[in-house]
């Protein structure tokens, strides 16, 4: 294996609320290798976005309590704010869920796309704008020269997300973190953007972390995925293996609960009963155990660690770690 480009080690990010500390990210560790696309899957509030923001040290008002983010040998959690600024937008770029609100409405898109170049390369307005227009063209914005003069609101949602991607790519970063990049878009536009991301990954060799709640999206995009639940990684492994043989009851149940387009017959769905956990008041032991069909007594007592289960996968489940196969009606 190559040296990982980015290595997250036992990351803990907490938020202070009226009701106490919330462990939004609770001991997350993973690696990202050059050029790969890593999927992080989970429901809202599972900590996937906070993990991404923590890598960029943009988790405010949250607090990185412990852990390391090693990027090309440097620990980003120890970096000064100035050093972080050099990383952000230059080495690691990030795009967000809602392209409607993620672009500043009062500046021209070209100017905004060019901004990282001015910031990080010190280019002048003209040079950076030329480069930005070039990039806009490459992400599929027709007549980019003219459109660079437009304001964000004059673009459709899909086009805006392309602008966001262009903005992230201008400085040819080594890592692109895409936080739910297609959630706010229509399926046909989602397909366009996903296609673009694949293309970007190939053309620029940018390692990508794709954060999404949509299992279908990661299935088509990522070689490796991480499944998060309540601030922890519950399962990780090659996408094909995880989908074929989930080693965590949550992954297992999730796959069975969503309707599939290719389902031949109408079968009732198998929902995951219960509610997603309240992060302020997590159940003891495995956070998933109140909803788990396989739970054993130990699950409500001890928190399972993420361990290798099977050849390629990691799972944090007492049941599968004990060798039990996940099967059900």
């Amino acid at each position, binding site marked *: 294996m190559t040296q990982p480009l980015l290595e997250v080690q036992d990351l803990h990010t907490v938020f202070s609320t009226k009701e106490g500390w919330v462990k939004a990210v609770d001991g997350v560790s993973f690696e990202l290798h050059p050029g790969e696309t890593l999927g992080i899957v989970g429901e809202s509030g599972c900590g996937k976005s906070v993990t991404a923001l923590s890598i960029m040290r943009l988790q405010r008002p949250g607090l990185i309590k412990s852990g390391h983010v090693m990027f090309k040998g440097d620990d980003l959690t120890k970096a000064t704010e100035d050093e972080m*600024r050099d990383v952000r*937008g230059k080495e690691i*770029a990030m795009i*967000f869920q809602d392209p409607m*609100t*993620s672009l500043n409405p009062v500046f021209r898109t070209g100017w905004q796309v060019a901004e990282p170049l001015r910031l990080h390369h010190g280019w002048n307005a003209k040079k950076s704008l030329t480069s930005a227009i070039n990039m806009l063209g490459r992400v599929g914005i027709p007549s980019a020269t003219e459109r660079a003069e437009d304001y964000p609101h004059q673009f459709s949602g899909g086009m805006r997300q392309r602008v966001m991607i262009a903005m992230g790519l201008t400085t040819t970063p080594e890592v692109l973190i895409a936080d739910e990049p297609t959630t706010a878009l229509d399926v046909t536009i989602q397909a366009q953007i996903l296609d673009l991301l694949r293309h970007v990954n190939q053309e620029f060799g940018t390692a990508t972390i794709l954060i999404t709640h949509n299992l279908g999206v990661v299935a088509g995009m990522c070689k490796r995925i991480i499944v998060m639940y309540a601030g922890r990684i519950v399962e990780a492994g090659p996408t094909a293996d995880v989908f074929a043989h989930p080693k965590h009851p949550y992954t297992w149940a999730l796959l069975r609960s969503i309707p599939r387009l290719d389902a031949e017959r109408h079968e009732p769905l198998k929902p995951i009963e219960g509610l997603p956990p309240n992060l302020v008041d997590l159940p003891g032991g495995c956070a998933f155990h109140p909803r788990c069909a396989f739970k054993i007594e130990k699950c409500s007592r001890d928190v399972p660690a993420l361990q290798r289960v099977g050849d390629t996968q990691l799972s944090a489940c007492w049941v599968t770690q004990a060798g039990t196969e996940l099967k059900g009606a």
Partner: protein
Amino acid sequence: MLAKYVARRFFASIVVVLGVTLITLVLMDRTRGTYVPGIDLNPALRPEDIARLRADLGLDRPFYIWYITWIWGVLHGDFGRSMIDGSTVMSHILDRLPNTLELTGTAILIGVLISIPVGVIGALRHGSKTDHTMTVVSVAGFAVPQFWMGLILILIFSVTLEQHGLPWLPSSGAYSAVNGGDFIDRVEHLILPATVLSFFYTSTWSRFIRSSMLEVLSQDYIRTARAKGMSERRVVYLHGLRNALIPLVTLIGLELPGLVSGGLVVEVVFGWPGIGKLAFERALQYDYTTVMGVTFFATMLVIAGNLLADLLYGVLDPRIRFA
């Protein structure tokens, strides 16, 4: 497109102008009783003289006739003559307007210059001691009656300082009676009234900017800006403030009529020869034409202010387009 928009707004505002001036006139006319503006009690005046004066002023006719006549004049650029002193209403307005603009303009400028940093700092450090202090000051700022603050300032900075042989500030008027009117002199006269007036603006606006800034700083594009790796200063003052100022512009635009009326109390306290004071004095003397002229003018300013706010909004916020 823009011209068309402005034109349409203008026509829509005619109703408002007519309404406002009519209300003004009715109020004055209902109160006046038999009193004829411009004449003091003077036993030398015979009833027929008074009747002639009334006729000259058009007061023998029902107010709606008077109103139509007045509107007709206004349409021809003639605002009539003051019922009190016979000079043209326009000359009164033009005489007073520069003073009013000087005072309120300065106050607004000071208000903007102080309230923006104060508001921004409050937002950036919200919850901090600095924020609390500034909040207390600004909340206290509009708890003080303006006239009261004016009087206290006069007592401290004019009378008391003078009596101790210290440099002091003039307490009334827009410039010195003798050889006044040069820049330094005008500034000296401006300090006290502008302080009172801007204190009010600063208090209001700094609160406003603070909340507007807080709102903006929670927006997604601020996160984007940070993710681009720009300094916090650039994030706040370029990406944040630019957006936070948009509503402020509206607020200031809406304050534009305050250019005329907002300073009324301050003008009275400091004997500042401005429009507000003029309107106040003339209203008490039933100088119909002058009051109507000022009201008309002030209403136009309200409308212009609203329009300007909208237009500026359009300039500052590219999402707004006029159609």
